[in-house]
C-alpha cells in the first residue's frame, strides 16, 4: 500500500477537528469528505489525494464516538492513519466499517517520516518503508481480532 504522507506533528487530534459537530447531520459521504480535518487544517481537502496517509502523534481520534470521523477521512482518499497511539473508539470505528487502517508506529517512524514523503506499508510484514528517504520502520502488529476484522473487510463480515 503506497502513498504520500500528510503530517500533523501534534498529539490529541480529536474527532471534533477531524469532522466538526455541525456536519454530523450530513449523510452524503462525498460531502462529508469536503469537511474532513476542517477544524484543524482548512486546506486539507484541497491538498489530500487518493491513497494518501495521515501521520500524527499520540491519542489520535480522541473524543466523540462519531464514526463520521474515519468516514470523512476515508472518503477524502486517506487509506491509513499512522500515529503513536489511538483513542480506542476511533480505532475500532476505523476497522469496523473498513474505512481505513489505524497503524500504531514508534518514535523512529514518527520522526523519520516527513510531510510529503512517499511510504509503502506492508501489513503482512508489519513494516513501513520510506521510499523518499530509503528507511524502514516497524509498525505495531494488529491484535488477533483487529487483524481478522480487517481481513474480513469489516465487523459484519468477521467470523471468529
Amino acid at each position, binding site marked *: 500500500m503506497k502513498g504520500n504522507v500528510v503530517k500533523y506533528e501534534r498529539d490529541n487530534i*480529536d474527532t*471534533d477537528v477531524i469532522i466538526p459537530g455541525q456536519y454530523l447531520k450530513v449523510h452524503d459521504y462525498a460531502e462529508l469528505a469536503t469537511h474532513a480535518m476542517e477544524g484543524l487544517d482548512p486546506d486539507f481537502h484541497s491538498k489530500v489525494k487518493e491513497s494518501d496517509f495521515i501521520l500524527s502523534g499520540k491519542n489520535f481520534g480522541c473524543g466523540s464516538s462519531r*464514526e463520521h470521523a474515519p468516514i470523512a477521512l476515508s472518503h477524502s482518499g486517506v487509506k491509513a492513519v499512522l500515529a503513536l*497511539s489511538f483513542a480506542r473508539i476511533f480505532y475500532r470505528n476505523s476497522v*469496523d466499517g473498513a474505512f481505513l487502517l489505524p497503524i500504531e508506529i514508534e518514535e523512529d517512524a514518527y520522526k523519520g517520516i516527513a510531510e510529503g514523503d512517499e511510504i509503502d506499508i506492508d501489513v503482512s510484514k508489519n513494516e513501513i518503508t520510506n521510499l523518499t528517504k530509503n528507511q524502514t520502520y516497524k509498525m505495531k502488529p494488529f491484535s*488477533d*481480532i483487529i487483524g481478522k476484522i480487517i481481513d474480513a473487510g469489516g465487523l459484519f463480515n468477521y467470523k*471468529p
Partner: protein
Amino acid sequence: MGKTLFEKIWDAHVVVGKQSGPSLIYIDRHLVHEVTSPQAFDGLRMNNRKVRRPDLTIATMDHNVPTTDRGLPILDQTSSVQIQTLEKNCQDFGIKLFDINSPNQGIVHVIGPQLGITLPGSTIVCGDSHTSTHGAFGALAFGIGTSEVEHVLASQTLWLEKPKPFEIRVEGKRKNPHAVTAKDIVLSIIKNIGTGGGTGTVIEYRGEGIEDLSMEQRMTICNMSIEAGARAGLIAPDEKTYEYLRGRQYTPKNYESLVDYWKENLKTDDDAKFEKQFTLHIDDIAPQVSWGTNPGMTCDVTETIPSPDDFSKGDSNQKKGAEKALDYMDLKPGTPIEEIKIDRVFIGSCTNARLEDLIEASKIVKRQKISSDVRAMVVPGSQMVKKQAEEMGLDKIFTDANFEWREAGCSMCLGMNPDILSPGERCASTSNRNFEGRQGTGGRTHLVSPVMAAAAAINGHFVDVRKVDFN
C-alpha cells in the same frame, strides 16, 4: 486471586471467549439517539435483519434538538430530517422512543439513570462516548461507533478485547464541598494522568472522596473518564446507589432481590489486582478552570496561565500543543485565571446539567444579575430535570438574573443545534470538551463546574468560588 468489580461484570457477560483474546460480550441496555444511529438502521434494512431485543433498546433525541420553544417547527432542515428518521426507525423496529415532546426526553446519559434504566452490574452501550456516565451506578458502560451500534441492534452483543483495570483512589475530604465539586475532582485527575492516561483501561474510582459524593456527582466523575482516554469508568454501588434507583419508572419489579444480589457480588475483592494505580488527595484541591484545548490543559483558578515550557516538561509535542492552544484561546502565559473575561456561560451537558448542578449554581445566582457583558444560558439535562427545577423555582432565580432558561438537550456542548459560540467568543462551560471549534467554529471553551460558571456569569470573569457566598 480475587477479581476487580470490572472483571466480575465482564466475566458475567461473556457469551463466547477465552482468558486472552477477544470475547463476545452480552449487552444489557442499548441507548440510541438521532445522530449515530441512522446508518445502523439502514444497515439492518439492507440485510433484512431485525432488532434482536427491542425491549432492551431505548431511544431519545438529544444531540441536535433545538432548546427553544418545542411548540415551534424545527427550522434546521437537516436536523429535522435526522429527528424524523429516528422516529421512523423506532416505529419500524419496535423501539421505545422518548420523542421531542415526551416528558422523559433529555440527554441519554441523564434520562437513563433518572428512569431506572441504568442498573448496577449491567453492560450499557450507546453511540456516544459519554456513555461512561452510567458507570457511576456500577455498570460497565461505554461509547461505541455506528458499526457497533448496528452489531448490537442485530445481535445484542459486541466483540471486544478486554481492557485493563485501573484503580484511581480519591482520598481525603474537601474543605468546601460547595465550591470544590466533583467536576474539580475529575478535572484534577485528568490534569494529572493526561488525556491518554486511561487508554486501554476501565477505571474504578474508589476511596473516601468518592464514597462521599452523591449519585449525581459520581456521574460527573464517570462521565469524564473518556476524557482521560479510558474505555469506561465505574464506581462500586452502595446504599446511595440503591436508594437513587428505588421506585423509578423503569426500575425492575424484583428490585429488592436484585439489590441483595448486587450487595453480595458488585465489589472488588480485597486481593484483586489492578494493572495501574493513581491516587488524588483532595483535602486542598482548588476549583479548576481549563485554559487550553483539551481537558488535560487545566489549572487551579488561583494560578496563572502556564508557559508551554512549564506545561510540557520537556515533551516537544506537548509544548507545540500548548503553544497552539494558547494561540487559539488568545491567552498569554502568566495571565491570572481570575483576570480572564468571558462572553458566554453555558450550564448544561451530560456532565453537569442534573438537578443538583442547577441547585448549586442557583445558590450563587440568587438575587444577583449576570454581568452586562455576558450572555448566559441554562439547558437542563432532561425535561424531567427542567420540571423538577421549575417546581423548586430555580428557573425564576436564573431568569431573574438574566440567564436564558431552555428546553433539554445537548445544546452548546457540541454545537450541533443553533446554540453555538460565535468566532472568538469565550465561554465558561460546564460541559466536557474544550476542543477547538467544539462549541462553534472559533469559539473558546473553558471547562468549569456549575458554581464556577454561575460565578463567572455574575462577575464577567472567573473567581475563586471558595470566597463566594452560597445563599
